[in-house]
């Protein structure tokens, strides 16, 4: 798919400046709304970095959906399970790198088990049945992880600095406050996407994965082993879940609510398009930034705690214009 660069250079800055001008206009009319450009940018950056965290979750969904058209609701509980396992292993005295590798191994085993026990018997069933089965996996993993490792909140510390820093102190009054942790999380997310991109574009397995994503039957007929590919995809999604779990877990502690971040990733997914990795990234950034700006600047007008639904309504309104999401494959229907 050829990417047109020019719109991407123009539209986002234009949207940001337009939004800023709009809010500035509102604050000029209504003194209740506090607005300076520095503050606006600070909120925007915080939201965007938060959005990277959403993208990480969404990425796991997209990988599996692309390869097998399964909407894997269990991604959230895979995140929780991975984080719990890693904390548990670190509790045995392992260094975090070793624990990370061991947990990655556990996630691969888990992927193989899921492929063997759930996906293989359900092959050729309607999508909704497979979706339901992943909700079953969601419940199972939730219970399994907490049975193994207990349900109390655990700290996961791999030594990421958390002190906030100020940037652009000479441009804006007081500078812009940026959380160092979020910046590192964003870098990790970027690195993960780069590795995945190389894996998909340059390796033999990556080519096979893309073939399966395009057309199951055609892939089978040229001799690509579908079952192996599925196990690999679920393993990759499991490792993405592990990275996500490490980042989210060290941000807010490893606990049951980690499984529910899947609900945060869903609007990101449909906004970006269910089948597109760039979509998951861009969707995450838009949702993160939009949500944060709405919460900070609009909550005086429509009430607090709008994060719960704002992302969904944003995604839904967007879908009314483009039903396949930003980067999703155009849905062509024939009778």
């Amino acid at each position, binding site marked *: 798919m050829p990417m047109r660069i020019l719109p991407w250079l123009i539209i986002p800055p234009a949207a940001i400046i337009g939004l800023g001008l709009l809010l500035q206009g509102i604050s000029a009319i209504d003194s209740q709304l506090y607005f300076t450009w520095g503050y606006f940018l600070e909120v925007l950056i915080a939201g965007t970095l938060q959005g990277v965290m959403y993208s990480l979750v969404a990425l796991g969904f997209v990988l599996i959906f692309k390869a097998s058209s399964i909407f894997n609701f269990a991604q959230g509980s895979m995140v929780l399970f991975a984080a719990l396992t890693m904390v548990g292993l670190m509790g045995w005295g392992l260094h975090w790198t070793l624990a990370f590798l061991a947990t990655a191994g556990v996630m691969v085993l888990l992927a193989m088990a899921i492929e063997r026990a759930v996906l293989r018997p359900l092959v050729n069933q309607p999508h909704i049945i497979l979706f339901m089965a992943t*909700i079953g996996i969601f419940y199972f993993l939730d219970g*399994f992880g907490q049975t193994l490792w207990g349900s109390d909140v655990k700290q996961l510390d791999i030594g990421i600095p958390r002190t906030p820093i100020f940037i652009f102190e000479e441009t804006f009054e007081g500078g812009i406050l940026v959380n160092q942790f979020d910046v590192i999380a964003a870098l990790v997310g970027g690195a993960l996407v780069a590795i995945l991109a190389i894996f998909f574009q340059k390796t033999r397995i990556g080519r096979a994965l893309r073939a399966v994503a395009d057309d199951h039957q055609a892939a089978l007929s040229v001799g690509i082993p579908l079952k192996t590919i599925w196990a690999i995809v679920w393993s990759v999604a499991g490792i993405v879940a592990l990275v996500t779990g490490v980042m989210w877990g060290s941000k807010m502690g490893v606990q049951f609510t980690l499984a529910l971040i899947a*609900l945060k990733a869903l609007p990101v997914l449909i906004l970006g398009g269910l089948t597109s990795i760039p979509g998951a990234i861009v969707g995450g950034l838009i949702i993160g930034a939009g949500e944060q700006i709405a919460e900070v600047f609009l909550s005086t007008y429509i009430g607090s705690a709008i994060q719960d639904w704002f992302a969904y309504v944003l995604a839904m309104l967007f879908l009314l214009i483009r039903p396949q999401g930003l980067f999703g494959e155009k849905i062509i229907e024939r009778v």
Partner: protein
Amino acid sequence: MFYREAGQYKSDYASDQAIFPIRQDRIGVLLIFLFALLVIPFIATNYLLNSILVPFLVFSIAAIGLNILTGYCGQVSLGTGGFMACGAFFTFKLTTWMPEVNILLIFLMAGFGTALVGIAFGIPSLRIKGFYLAIATLAAQFFLIWMFTQNPWWTNYNPAGVITAPPRALFGNFYITGIEATPVNKYLFLLCFTAALALVAKNLVRSALGRAWMAIRDMDIAAEIIGIRPMAAKLSAFAVSSFFIGISGAAWAFMYTASVEALAFEVTRSFQVLFMIIIGGLGSILGSFLGAAFIVLLPIALSNLPAMVGLRLPVDLIAHLEFMIFGALIVFFLIVEPNGLARLWQIGKEKLRRWPFPY
């Protein structure tokens, strides 16, 4: 041997279109209904009525509602909890505003109100399909719950945000909500109400409207080509489905928990009802009942099982194990019979017809 329709001839159109064309079915359903109506109230304990039969009936209504939308019209919805909350809060507002109006009418009015909300949130279905739609309906779920928790107007400015259901009588002294209501009263009312609603649903899905829904489900473009208006069909499915779900939400809040709170209708409730129709059988009214019974009974059985076999486990471990077994059973059921319990019943019926002969 006993279950066969040999000798039962259809001699007019009415008998050809009967809901239960086989006499044994008619007798069986009638016997079950009479048993539930006349025998159970006298033999059942309050525990059985309050924590098994009442939630079963409430969930049956919700499952029928969702089955109309998802099973018959093919639109996957995850907003069930939000619509149930609508029914509960509409009922509360209406009945505190007009205490003299009969509670049955209030329930129906709340159902119609929820139907309007359902139409509003069903509009995206005209453009969005499949999983995109399923996620978009989550917008309804989160937005509605947020609206009910944020606006104190919905709870009549009650500081706690949790309100008990006011006492209301169906007629005379027959209280069905509030503290005066006995479990038997609630059960009897719900039984008749559910039976009536199921009859309405069964007849709706056999009508022209129901056939239009099924055509949309099977392939919407083909349906459009043969002259079915997708907008009318989809929005009517959303409306009817929300009507049922709203009523079940009202019954949940007023008869099962006896308190109206938005927290009872979180997204897990939506998944629960979706499980019911998938396990029970998509596109089957009977399946809605079977699925509701299964999902209501399973957690109770799971939490009582360790105590029954004499195991003493810590409470939180039991809770986690319950989650695990629940998830595993869901997957197991989907693998064994993806078409649900209703399909099992059909297979059983075929076997029963030939019994005791092999063919």
